[in-house]
């Protein structure tokens, strides 16, 4: 049997990789993909814990997370499409309207 701790370590590593990916990449789309990676890492952690605690709640949560992530991806991509239409670019270096 593989101990849940292994999965948990894997989840942590995956999460950190997602964070690094977010900061390394320079276009919105890839950054968004990094966010998905982070979400998946979270899912993995939930399932690991569900196995460790013997309850099914973790799986239910995972289901919800996947659903929400899907919805979020839809809207997020719609927004990125809009931004692209407006600005003809999705490089975050060019999108600095919030500069104060």
């Amino acid at each position, binding site marked *: 049997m593989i101990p849940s701790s292994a999965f948990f370590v894997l989840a*942590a590593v995956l999460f950190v990789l997602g964070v690094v990916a977010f900061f*390394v990449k320079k276009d919105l789309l890839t950054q968004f993909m990094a966010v998905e990676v982070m979400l998946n890492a979270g899912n993995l952690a939930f399932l690991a814990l569900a196995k460790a605690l013997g309850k099914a709640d973790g*799986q239910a949560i995972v289901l919800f997370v996947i659903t929400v992530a899907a919805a979020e991806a839809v809207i997020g991509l719609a927004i990125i499409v809009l931004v692209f239409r407006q600005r003809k670019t999705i490089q975050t270096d060019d999108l600095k309207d919030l500069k104060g």
Partner: protein
Amino acid sequence: MAWAVFLILSFLCIGSVVAMILSRNQAHSALFLVLSFSSLGGLFGLLDAPFAAAVQVLVYAGAIMVLFLFAIMMFNLRGELPARAKKLRLALTAGLGIVLLAELLLAGRKLVLGNPGAAQTAGGDTARLGHLLFSDYIYAFEITSLLILAALVGALALAGKKEGA
């Protein structure tokens, strides 16, 4: 046996994420992620969560990432390859990442250091999962369906082409 599967799947997963980071072509990144999510689905299966595994492959790898690919194709950004990240930025991010990793592992130390005595009996029975969804989590269940509807409508409203524009 299980260990071998685990190791292969985890290497695939992590490897493809790293490849995604290093790749300069967005389409390649997306495809690497498809690989990653699929192996993640396998890992879910190892965790006695067959339903979650199936959903992961179907929805995440099969739908969300495909959506990403559509978007990438729409943008048609072949010509532009983003520049290499600056060394300083990479170092800083790596450093912060290591700190975060340490903290996360610390947070889960109870689990990591083992609590093998806890019931390893699987909660993974899909029937049980179903029961749970429709009893304890019925509220969230219904809300998420509304959420999906909202996402659908929202996406259309945001990015759909206007009639006769």
